[in-house]
């Protein structure tokens, strides 16, 4: 694969995506609000957020499928408003819903993409990709008859086929089993190691932790970004982990206490979090001496942070 981080670019920059103030509305509803972000070349950038938070819209703006109402920026050094055609040549976009031709075979789909990008040896390129994504033996199977995991591999194969420099993956692992998900992420890391920049949206926290950097978006607002550790640190959330038995009563009692912002069960333990450390400690004090439970201060998980962010953004933008 070409297009490593050091290869010559129009601006020679080390930044793959650089956008400022993107805004997009549909039917009077603002889906993306004043969104700015930078993605380094060769990195895996996770895009997280609840359903309908504007992830797909942002990705579509980046690859020229939507025009922003306002805002500007570059993708691989090309202006996202003026150079959509050039961006399309160098960006692979994997849609949320499978969007290859169901009535074409695996090979025919890949050859179609290869021809469309004007690759000199479309058959050869398709055959190589079939081997790479492990679909050998299924070349002649119609895409419609593939299982979810195979479809997703085919889709990834199709969007990496023309040797793009940037991959935009919109919830690529939704509805895919854990083994296929892991293989998929290994492939993404392999691609990034070859110098590809990957922007991937997801709901899964374990996937977020596989990214070099993440951004959290809710209600069209970018709420946090950085490495996983930076995002957790920036949240200023204090968390206590409770282990023991019979959480049901405890959960109900803690949920509405001042100082407790979030109570979430994690299997045999309970995460109790608050933004104000002192207030949280005051709130849990009456329960800490109970021998039924064991209390331990802990780091909030990424999920704790996101659910907290989501709760706060709801207050800010929906209230």
């Amino acid at each position, binding site marked *: 694969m070409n297009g490593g981080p050091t290869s010559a670019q129009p601006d020679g920059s080390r930044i793959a995506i650089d956008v400022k103030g993107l805004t997009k509305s549909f039917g009077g509803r603002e889906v993306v609000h004043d969104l700015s972000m930078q993605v380094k070349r060769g990195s895996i950038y996770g895009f997280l957020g609840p359903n309908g938070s504007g992830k797909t819209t942002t990705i*579509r703006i980046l690859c*020229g*499928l*939507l025009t922003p109402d306002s805002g500007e920026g570059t993708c691989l050094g090309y202006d996202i408003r003026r150079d959509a055609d050039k961006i399309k040549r160098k960006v692979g976009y994997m*849609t949320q*819903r499978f*969007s290859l031709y169901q009535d074409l075979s695996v090979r025919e789909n890949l050859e179609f993409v290869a021809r469309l990008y004007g690759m000199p040896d479309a058959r050869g390129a398709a055959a190589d990709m079939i081997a790479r994504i492990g679909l050998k033996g299924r070349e002649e199977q119609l895409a419609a008859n593939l299982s979810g995991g195979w479809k997703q591999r085919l889709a990834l194969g199709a969007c990496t086929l023309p040797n793009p420099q940037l991959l935009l993956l919109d919830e690529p692992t939704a509805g895919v089993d854990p083994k296929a998900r892991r293989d998929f992420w290994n492939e993404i890391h392999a691609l990034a190691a070859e110098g590809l920049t990957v922007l991937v949206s997801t709901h899964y926290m374990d996937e977020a932790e596989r990214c070099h950097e993440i951004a959290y978006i809710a209600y069209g607002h970018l709420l946090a970004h950085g490495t996983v550790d930076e995002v957790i640190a920036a949240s200023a959330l204090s968390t206590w982990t409770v282990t023991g038995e019979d959480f049901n009563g405890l959960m109900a009692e803690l949920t509405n206490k001042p100082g407790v912002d979030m109570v979430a069960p994690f299997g045999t333990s309970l995460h109790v979090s608050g933004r104000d450390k002192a207030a949280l400690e005051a709130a849990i004090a009456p329960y800490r001496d109970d021998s039924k439970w064991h209390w331990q201060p802990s780091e909030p998980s990424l999920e704790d942070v996101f659910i907290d962010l989501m709760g706060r953004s709801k207050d800010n933008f929906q209230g």
Partner: protein
Amino acid sequence: MRATDTIRNGEDREPAFGFWRRSYAMLVKEFIQLRRDRVSFAMIIMLPVMQLTLFGYAINTTPRNLPTAVLTQEDTDLGRSILKAMENTAYFHFVREVHTVEQFDELLQSGKVLFGVEIPRGFERAVRRGDRPALLVAADATDPTAAGSALGALGPLVQTALAHDLHVGDPPDMPFEIRAHARYNPAADSRLNIVPGLVGTILTMTMLIFTALSVTREIERGTMESLLSMPIKPVEVMFGKIIPYVLVGFIQATLIIAIGILLFGVPVLGSLTLLALLTTLFITTNLSIGYTFSTIVQNQLQAMQLSMMFFLPSILLSGFMFPFAGMPVWAQYIGEGLPLTHFVRIVRAIMLKGAAMPNLQYDTIALAALMLFAMTVAVTRFRRTLD
């Protein structure tokens, strides 16, 4: 729910009027969906109203004011009286006056006129002498309906009209003879007319549908999102979608014409190459129009409806089913905008009259213009983003 369950468990009993409730639920849902689909809803109203008023006024099976040419080889009072009498029948409308036989034949062959009246040299003198000379009326009988009633009315009506003018007695005493000559299809065999027309009609229907569904299908199946994210331009999408069907249409046309020749004995008097060439042009024009529809509508149902809305006038106003010359002028203008009108003229002219390119220039240019217009609209209408 199985019957055994119903018996064992009272709570699982089939609710009262279950059939009606479920049917009702389905019915309500369908109405809501229908109401949301504005275009379909509009077409439910528009289609019958528009089509009925359009065709009700436009179609006329006993056409009048048919375009007629006159070949005058002498300019006499008697000749002028006869022409006047013919025009008074309201069947004939003299549009051209020519002086050579070649011009006269060209007008008939190209379909610019349906009738030609020839007043031979020395006609008036021969009448005076009592020779009962012949007045030649040539008719383009490729479409027997159009020519038939006018020819039928010719003899008696002209005689009656002239009787007053010439102060002659009863019709049997007519001092000249009207000799009607049905050209191209002398036996008035309507199959000879219908089969060439069917070539165009069948092609219109099939070609239109092929491409009318093409873009909406991509949108409905979700493949459009992928396609748009790749570096392909609207013109390229269009050509890629039209060209395969040109071949399909060509095979179809070959089949129809072959059946016409073999089973119905329709002749091909003109050049087969020219016929193949112009048929390809016609196929491409229809595919372009279908593709244009595809870029305008939102779903496949609308695409089908729009195709039907185009197809009906194509059949009724193109001169395929009813005489073109018999329609009011406004309907003829609509007809000129339909590719089938031009193709029906072309295919009849080549097959039945042996016409060559010079006779068909106008209709060829019209087809090409319609094709380019449709393509331009399609390319500008094609949305390159999902906005």
